[in-house]
């Protein structure tokens, strides 16, 4: 900045001195203009001065404590607005180191937060389903599903149900949009933006795109905004996790076609495992151990940690697998529905034969 001003002064001095000689004036002016523009460009490019700051001859302090915090958050969350940015090489190298360490840490934290949120969401949704069921189906007890004797004898009745807790994509999307809209309202209060601009800003931020065409001012409200951003990131992570990946996994699944249980994907904990691979792994262990017990061990072990994907129309599929004549399927499947029990997924007669 000082350089710019000294150049400017030189320029003006020369102007006054050489006002008489026209030719020299021209060349000098050209040279100084070039100098000036060079300096200015360097200033803009390297040190990110704005024209206002040049006019006022006072560089706004870019690296105050609060703006540094803001910068750090934008780096580790990978939003990266691009204002402020490190200008020196040391600053850049430090920035790389910092993000190398900071980004995974932040990811872990935010994923944790997202998981926490999604667990609560699942719980809430489960309760909602129960309520709905209770309200709607209290009086319709005659339309029960068939429960086989065998299951009855083990004390499993109609009131027990395997809940299917899958959150509809619509709900998750609604949450995301409501949160973004909330951000829109918040930002249109804090910033001189319209509601829609704020909405757009919060979406671009939540998804960590961070174009940087719109930036929040960094003043007292900054901490509120940061809080909003971090919470929003957790929510977005949750949403993408719940909806996007689930749906895409479905595409995966159908791409594979339903061959058999071996190619089914099982999600255990947080890992996607092929059933066949796990099975093979267990078989290896068994072969090594050479014990007869191991077979049962393996069966049970598989049963505990993974159960092959059970489609809702398991009975039909099973039937297709077992017998080749397709003609009987359509007629028998409904009868099977009546006969089969949804808890043990097996036909009554089969169970009898087992005994």
């Amino acid at each position, binding site marked *: 900045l000082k350089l710019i001003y000294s150049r400017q002064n030189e320029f003006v001095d020369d102007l006054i001195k050489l006002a008489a000689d026209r030719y020299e004036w021209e060349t000098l002016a050209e040279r100084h203009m070039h100098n000036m523009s060079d300096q200015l460009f360097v200033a803009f490019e390297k040190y990110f001065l704005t024209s206002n700051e040049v006019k006022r001859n006072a560089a706004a302090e870019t690296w105050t404590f609060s703006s540094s915090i803001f910068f750090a958050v934008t*780096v580790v969350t*990978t*939003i*990266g*607005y*691009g204002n402020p*940015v490190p200008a020196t*090489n040391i600053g*850049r*190298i430090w*920035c*790389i180191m910092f*993000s190398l360490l900071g*980004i*995974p*840490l932040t990811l872990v934290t935010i994923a944790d937060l997202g998981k926490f949120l999604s667990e609560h969401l699942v719980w809430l949704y489960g309760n909602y389903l129960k309520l709905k069921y209770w309200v709607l189906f209290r009086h319709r007890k005659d339309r029960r599903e068939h429960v086989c004797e*065998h*299951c009855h004898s083990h004390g*499993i009745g109609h009131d027990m149900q395997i*809940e299917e*807790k899958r959150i509809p994509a619509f709900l998750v999307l609604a949450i995301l949009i409501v949160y973004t809209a909330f951000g829109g309202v918040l930002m249109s209060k804090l910033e001189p933006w319209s509601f*829609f601009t704020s909405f757009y800003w919060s*979406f*671009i931020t939540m998804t*960590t*795109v*961070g*174009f*940087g*065409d719109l930036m929040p001012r960094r003043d007292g409200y900054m901490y509120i905004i940061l809080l909003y951003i971090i919470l929003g990131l957790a929510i977005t992570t949750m949403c*993408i996790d719940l909806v*996007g*990946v*689930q749906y*895409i*996994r*479905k*595409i995966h*699944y159908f*791409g594979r076609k339903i061959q058999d249980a071996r190619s*089914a*994907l*099982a999600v*255990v*904990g*947080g890992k996607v*495992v092929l059933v066949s*691979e796990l099975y093979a*792994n267990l078989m290896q262990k068994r072969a*090594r151990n050479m014990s007869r017990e191991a077979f049962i*061990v393996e069966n*049970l*072990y598989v*049963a*505990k940690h*993974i*159960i092959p*994907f*059970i489609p809702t129309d398991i009975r039909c599929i099973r039937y297709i697998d077992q017998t080749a004549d397709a003609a009987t399927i359509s007629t028998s499947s409904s009868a099977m529905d009546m006969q089969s029990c949804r808890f*043990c997924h097996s036909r009554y007669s089969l169970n009898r034969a087992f005994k």
Partner: protein
Amino acid sequence: MAPQAIIILILTTLMVVGAVVFQQIDPVLAEQSFYEVIFFEFITISTIGYGNQYPITRQSRIFSIIFALMGIPLLVVTLGNFGKYLTKFYWKAYGSIFRKKVERQLVNDKDIPLIIIIGLYGLTFLVGFFTIPQSGKAYSVDDTYFSFISFATVGFGDKVPQIDTFYRFGKVMSYLVWGTILNIILINYLTNCFNDLINRTPQIRGTKMEVMIGDQFITVSEITSLVAQQFHASPHQVRSILHDIDKIMEDMQNNENTMEIEEKS
């Protein structure tokens, strides 16, 4: 590979359609060439977001929101899968080169060792050094800085790649895609490290634990009760058996480990 192909197909269609729509509704993007708009879309859905191109009009902003909603999960899954393939490929190559039998389980679960990742990074930076022009000074720290900030999808936008010709566009795109995949692997590795550090590998414990199979959620307690029926035993018995089995498996594993150690020594 087939499902992967489907996803890529959808992604490509989305990109092309998106580019056409963007050129229709945004005056600034309309002036730019087609591949520049594609580049903008990629920058958006990879969440790099340099900010040298951005939507201006209201319609194009709405459209970019919708576009990002669809595109981001798609790209995340695609790149993540590529990362997995790369890891698998590495282990297979490793197995064939050193004639060591790598267990199948290893191929799926284990990460590429850090040294290799760093080596790949170095190689990539070297390639980027010579081929990828950006607005900073060439052949300097700027290159590494630019590459890293892009790969980590921070994307400040103070250094932007130049894509004035189609050839350069291709180069930059492939460079960025490759780098992002590499970065996903690295971040995965570091995340696992942190998880190990605080010893928080996802534990499968407790009867209330939910297991997701296909797309059904079942709690472990329900599974045990199912198993109990199949074996005509009470759930309690099954549970105790399972505990025994767990112990046996653990012992087995320990035995194996000690055996291996003994064999080595």
